[in-house]
């Protein structure tokens, strides 16, 4: 509160232009320049980041592979409400759509879409479309004659909902939910609920990995920070070594070390710690995933911690000691709180990276070491249900953003030191 601003309501420059206006004018040029400088980066981020993510989010709620290929059914569904009998007119619409599908070779695509909801229906579409040209009205008899499977009310319900390209059904599926006969949202049969379990396992494993990284990285970073620069640079190479070797090579070497016939088990048997029948299972399960990922992600914890610890002068701990604190108290009350920005940054980084990790669990995770990313990959590559993959990925993204927000609320993102 300076008294000059209080005294005169409008300040002007020497030539009488209002001060605010003059300031804006003089800054405009600098701003334009700054914008031009960041424009290429901005475009790059837009093209490589914002657009693909937007595309992904869109795919998770939009799928037109059935609605675009089945116009006649679309029309019939909109004229007949839910629960109307599936009569001859419905089968006529189906026949007409199957014909167009055959001409455009889109029966597989449409079948795949329905197959997401009712398993085993893809072949129904392909086999019936193959024979559609030879069929004659009455359509209901003819089509049911080709395959009895068309008589399934679930199938018709699925087709009805697939005629709406915009849908939240993929999110429902990703959350282990589905719609019942009356279109109510219900949980799926517990023994088919897999995604919730996977999300939970991903979170738990990531948490364990983050904690392990923290425990391992803290002493390493402290050692690095307290050594003279020449020595710490040398040690830093060992910390960074994992970054420089191929991920696959590293993961494979973990396999060699940890598998049942591997080096570590051989050693334990040789030492007589375990007997030959009781070889430990450290690979192709959760343990394998945790060990390998902790190793791979450790540098992401060490680096921010190190960069924070380097800036903490030893005089703080000395001051605490001279004031009467034992070395433990000095550590706990003076040193540790000052490393929090580093711990926070490292933990956030490791957790977010491990939540989305894919290759290591795929290689060493076995059946129960798979994470949600492996499921996303499965839907991208094997089941080709991209919309479900997108829905899963969006949920993952939302989870990470919530975490980030929480971190910001609790620690403050501007306190984060990444190195």
């Amino acid at each position, binding site marked *: 509160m300076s008294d000059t601003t209080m005294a005169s309501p409008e300040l002007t420059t020497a030539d009488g232009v209002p001060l605010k206006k003059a300031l804006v004018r003089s800054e405009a040029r600098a701003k334009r320049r700054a914008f031009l400088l960041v424009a290429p980066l901005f475009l790059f981020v837009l093209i490589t980041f914002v657009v693909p993510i937007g595309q992904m989010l869109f795919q998770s709620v939009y799928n037109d592979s059935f609605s675009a290929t089945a116009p006649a059914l679309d029309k019939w569904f909109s004229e007949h409400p839910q629960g109307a009998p599936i009569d001859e007119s419905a089968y006529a619409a189906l026949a007409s759509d199957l014909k167009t599908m055959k001409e455009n070779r889109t029966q597989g695509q449409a079948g795949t879409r329905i197959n997401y909801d009712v398993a085993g229906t893809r072949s129904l579409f392909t086999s019936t479309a193959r024979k559609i040209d030879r069929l004659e009205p009455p359509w209901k008899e003819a089509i049911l004659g080709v395959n009895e499977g068309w008589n399934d009310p679930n199938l018709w319900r699925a087709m009805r909902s697939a005629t709406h390209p915009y849908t939240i059904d993929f999110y429902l599926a990703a959350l282990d939910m589905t719609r019942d006969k009356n279109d109510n949202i219900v949980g799926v049969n517990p023994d088919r609920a897999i995604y919730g379990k996977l999300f939970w396992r991903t979170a738990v494993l990531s948490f364990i990995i983050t904690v392990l990284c923290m425990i391992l990285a803290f002493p390493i970073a402290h050692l690095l920070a307290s050594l003279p620069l020449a020595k710490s640079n040398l040690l830093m190479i060992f910390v960074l070594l994992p970054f420089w070797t191929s991920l696959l090579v590293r993961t494979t070497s973990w396999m060699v070390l940890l598998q049942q016939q591997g080096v570590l088990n051989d050693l334990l048997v040789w030492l007589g710690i375990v007997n030959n029948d009781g070889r430990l299972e450290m690979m192709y399960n959760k343990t394998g995933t945790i060990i390998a990922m902790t190793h791979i992600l450790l540098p992401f914890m060490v680096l921010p911690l190190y960069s924070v610890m380097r800036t903490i*002068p030893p*005089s*703080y701990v*000395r*001051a*605490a*000691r*001279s*004031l*009467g*604190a*034992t*070395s433990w*108290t*000095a550590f706990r*009350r*003076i040193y540790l*709180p*000052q490393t929090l920005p580093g711990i926070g940054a490292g933990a956030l980084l490791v957790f977010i990276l491990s939540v989305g990790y894919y290759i290591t669990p795929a290689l060493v995770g076995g059946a129960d070491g798979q994470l949600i990313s492996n499921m996303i990959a499965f839907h991208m590559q094997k089941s080709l249900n991209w919309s479900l993959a997108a829905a899963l990925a969006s949920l993952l993204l939302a989870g990470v953003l919530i975490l980030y927000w929480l971190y910001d609320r609790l620690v403050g993102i501007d306190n984060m030191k990444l190195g």
Partner: protein
Amino acid sequence: MNNAADGDGFVVFDRVQKSYDGETLVVKDLNLSIGKGEFLTMLGPSGSGKTTCLMMLAGFEMATNGEILLDGKNINMVPPHKRGIGMVFQNYALFPHMTVGENLAFPLEVRGMGKDERETKIKRALDMVQMGDFINRRPAQLSGGQQQRIALARALVFDPELVLMDEPLGALDKQLREHMQFEIKHLHESLGITVVYVTHDQGEALTMSDRVAVFNDGRIQQLAAPDELYERPQNSFVAQFIGENNKLPGTVETLTGDTCTVRLETGEIIDATAVNIREAGQETLVSIRPERVEFKPEMMPAGAHTIGAEVLEVIYMGDILRTRMRVAGSDEFVMKSRNTLDQVRLKPGERLKIGWHPQDARALDPM
């Protein structure tokens, strides 16, 4: 006030040596006895081992050899937190994640003091440094001088009998530094604490201390009260390090008791006080303070030897006139005279005779 190493001081360094690398001694044979309530300053150039001595006293470095006694007890094996020594660091080392109040509460909390007692002590310590209103600020929100005061208050809040300060005023500007010197001195007197103070600012050392230990090369070169140190330096390092000095190298011609005559390299003979001269014929370095050089014959003692000089430059410095001249082949001889109304203004090129009282010329070991 005790003399060095007589064994009954409050703090005693007894034949202490320190080496970091096992090859060079950073502190070589340190013997020092500090009396209770004394303000002792360690003064010396960078790297002379002052901080090392302080760190050994505080317990952060182990003496490689010798004993350190505190109040008569050997503290070599006592960990730092049990020594009860207050310490002010050069960069203050205020805990950045705590407020001023929490910083001051820390030493009291670790001593298990109750809340009420803590609050009274904190308040008293803050009032002592006139910072009572800043209790809820963080160190980052304070100016350098204010941080300095808080560091001082924190070192004093738990009533230590001994306080160590390692260049506590090094980061402050001149005016603030002088002000803080006064305040620290004042606190020392009113609290009756013993202070060991490290600085490489000789002005600071002279104005604040009861005694000054001049360090160089891991040894105490001289341990004396400030006036003694300035007026009677024991060797040429101290003479040069404290204040400005003219140096005239030469050979001792005659030695009679405390006085001697010295033949300079250019052949002139001057009088001097023999400080560490053993015999005639010895090489020496005569040191004379610029303000003790006289050029008016009536100011010189009777029978004093004079020496020819040529004025090279006169610098007007306000309160004094600084005259640089060529004496005995050296261009660096300086004379300072007070700028009084009747002062004779010399001109460059002028030739004259200068002299001094034999007491003011000290024949020291050559360096």
